[in-house]
């Protein structure tokens, strides 16, 4: 395999297959919870943290591409975005949608300002930063793949363990609360999974498009299935296949960002699914 596509691409492929699987797996529950917009907002809110993480790692004299520091920054930044959304929703008269739109655009705008500043003073090799916006697997290192792979497996394992409670929580929150799992805890669990998937997906898909990994495979799977568990598995399969093929195409045609290729592939699958299920009349 590595002889055919090269070591770097093989690494990226492993990461993409695992990430695609778990993002589809988690995405099914995000989709059913109707939390797609929240995840998009969260993804855009990672940018300031990414840039700050980049600056920190540069000034501390680490390697410029110490992705762990960058991802940590992204995570903190996104978490802050979520806190702001919750604060706006709880403490002001503004609605959830307004809070999401405000955080999404303001955080992203602030991140772009920071990014432009970093580029103009040209500290370190900031080229790597842009990879996180649209996704690029060309510079993927073994350590990146190990992190992405392990975290993906952990997210999927969490979905397997909590599948019943997540299902009950989304369908009828009072039921899961009465079963001993408080709504805020279940909500936190799902948000945490969304956050983690978003962060590890930055490198492969990029922050602008990572929301697609959490929604399009799930929406496609929804058309073909009638139960939560089968839906989440099919969604995981769709995500994995699309991410895998996308990474290979992007490796063969390096000018194409991997994130965009993956999203186009997923869109084709969704479009075909809509047409076929509609024609079969099985659109339940």
């Amino acid at each position: 395999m590595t002889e055919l596509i090269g070591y770097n691409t093989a690494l990226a492929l492993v990461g993409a297959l695992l990430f695609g699987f778990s993002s589809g797996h988690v995405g099914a529950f995000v989709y059913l919870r109707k939390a797609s917009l929240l995840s998009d907002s969260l993804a855009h809110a990672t940018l300031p943290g990414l840039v700050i993480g980049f600056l920190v790692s540069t000034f501390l004299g680490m390697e410029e591409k110490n992705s762990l520091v960058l991802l940590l920054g992204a995570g903190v930044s996104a978490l802050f975005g979520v806190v702001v959304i919750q604060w706006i929703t709880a403490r002001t008269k503004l609605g959830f949608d307004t809070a999401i739109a405000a955080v999404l655009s303001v955080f992203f705008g602030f991140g772009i300002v920071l990014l432009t500043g970093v580029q103009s003073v040209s500290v370190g090799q900031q080229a790597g930063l842009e990879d996180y916006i649209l996704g690029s697997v060309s510079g993927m290192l073994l350590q990146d793949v190990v992190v992405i792979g392990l975290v993906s497996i952990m997210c999927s394992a969490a979905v397997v363990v909590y599948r019943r409670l997540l299902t009950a929580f989304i369908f009828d929150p009072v039921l899961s609360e009465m079963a001993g799992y408080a709504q805020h805890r279940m909500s936190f669990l799902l948000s945490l999974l969304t956050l983690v998937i978003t962060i590890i997906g930055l490198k492969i898909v990029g922050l602008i498009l990572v929301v697609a990994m959490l929604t399009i495979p799930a929406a496609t799977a929804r058309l073909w299935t009638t139960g939560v568990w089968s839906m989440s598995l099919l969604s995981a399969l769709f995500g994995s296949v699309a991410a895998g093929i996308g990474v290979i195409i992007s490796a063969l045609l390096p000018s194409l960002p991997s994130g965009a290729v993956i999203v186009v592939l997923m869109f084709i699958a969704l479009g075909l699914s809509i047409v076929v299920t509609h024609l079969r009349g099985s659109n339940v």
Partner: protein
Amino acid sequence: MSADAISATELSVDYDGVTAIQDVDFTVRAEKLTAIVGPNGAGKSTLIKALLGLIPNRNGTISCFGTSPKQYRKNISYVPQRAQIDWEFPANVFDVVAMGLYGELGLLRRFSSAHKDRVQSALTDVDMADFAARQISQLSGGQQQRVFLARSIVQDAELILLDEPFGGIDSKSEAVIVDILRRQKQHGKSIVAVHHDLSTVKDYFDDVILLNKTVTAFGPINDVFTKSNIEKTYGVSNLDFLTGRS
């Protein structure tokens, strides 16, 4: 068994920062069908939430069979309003009833054939056994309500709380559901339902709680479901057209 399923003393509950229930005292007899009746905004759903232990009381106490709602929680099953549920959710009738066992199954316990039998038997109890594989989006309102009742039966809770079980369903389904509730009562269950239709209170229920922020009256229908009490609760006179049978 204690004679009272629920007793509330000097209970006040806020909802969204507004006093929804003010200083109420009442008891609910065990193994009876009790209706909570009152006008819109009377705090009926808030009272149910407080009984479920989902919202804290500002003042006073609630006890369910002598303990707090939170401690008693595993012995309470709740049937939500149909309108609060997303019926496009990918689940069939069997899946929804099986959810009643999730509390018991916890995270990892296997869903065994004994569990499957319990789900099937609950579906038989509500006469929905033939619909086990049907998607919930393809059910009528009455069937949806029966599925939730089956879920409640499978939970095997002592206390069943229902929020408007007859909301938006036809009278034939209503009769079927009343029948199911009566059978549950015979099996020793205590049942409390928010109810809107004053004209059927006498036919369906044993006891009533008349609520409008405060409790106007509570107890056996024949004693307390009187014209003057109803008028006091609704704050209007001349309700004869609603209570035609009384």
